[in-house]
């Protein structure tokens, strides 16, 4: 499986166009074989159209803010945050986005998507996370 990946389209903060990140087969295997299952639903979505209702793809394509320098021990990487069109239960039922929360997708310096999850939103701005102390550098923000 080495080297296999699936390209995920994302908003490019530098050009305003599209950039491609990679979901490696190793990360895909972790998600499928170990879960939790909600991660699979949040990645894949559940509509008839591939990617429809996918929290990960929604936020990559239409973020509200992009942070850089997200890791304490390794420079680089970015975090796309935003409000996706849906959230998911562990059984795979589609629900509205979680109130008071924002979705975050993490990308390492090699352009590999490696983690995605819900975070509590800032009380004064529901489009950004409450605690951004680990990712201070804003690369881009929707106005």
């Amino acid at each position, binding site marked *: 499986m080495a080297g296999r990946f699936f390209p995920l389209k994302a908003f490019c903060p530098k050009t305003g166009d599209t950039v491609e990140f990679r979901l490696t087969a190793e990360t895909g295997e972790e998600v*499928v074989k170990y*879960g*939790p299952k909600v991660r699979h639903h949040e990645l894949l979505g559940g509509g008839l159209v591939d990617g429809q209702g996918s929290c990960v793809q929604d936020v990559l394509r239409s973020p509200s803010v992009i942070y850089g320098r997200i*890791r*304490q021990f390794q420079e680089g990487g970015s975090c796309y945050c935003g409000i996706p069109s849906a959230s998911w239960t562990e059984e795979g039922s589609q629900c509205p986005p*979680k109130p008071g929360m924002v979705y975050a997708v993490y990308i390492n310096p090699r352009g590999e998507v490696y983690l995605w*999850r819900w975070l509590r939103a800032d009380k004064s701005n529901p489009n950004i996370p409450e605690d951004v102390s680990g990712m201070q550098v804003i690369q881009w923000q929707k106005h």
Partner: protein
Amino acid sequence: MAETLTDFLKSCGGEPQFKSEPRYNRAGDCVEYFFSNEAHHADRVDGVLTLYRADDNHSIIGFQVKGITALHKLLGNFGIAVNTGKVTVGMLILGAYYSAGDSRHTADNRRRLYESLNERLDPDACRQPVLVDQN
């Protein structure tokens, strides 16, 4: 025709499953351990530890420890054998507690959050080895 994400994930292992065991995420240089297969959100404790809480009742259902390469080095410097590429869950959490800064919590609150995680983990879970394969 281009491969769809559905096809790609099927080729990665078929239908989604849940296994409760500590896993090293090489792309993210972090370890995650989920005790329960529930919808959840992240609750950042400090620069190293993040707790996963169930959406329903906010109970701790898992955690993430970041910066495993640096933590491995730190543990090695204290003579804790990591030559085999294995380290226990308890040791990782202890290492996280002593190495992390960058917390919005007071020192007391931060300690309480680590204690809450410790209470949630039984001794067997703390002794679980995590295979950290960085190659």
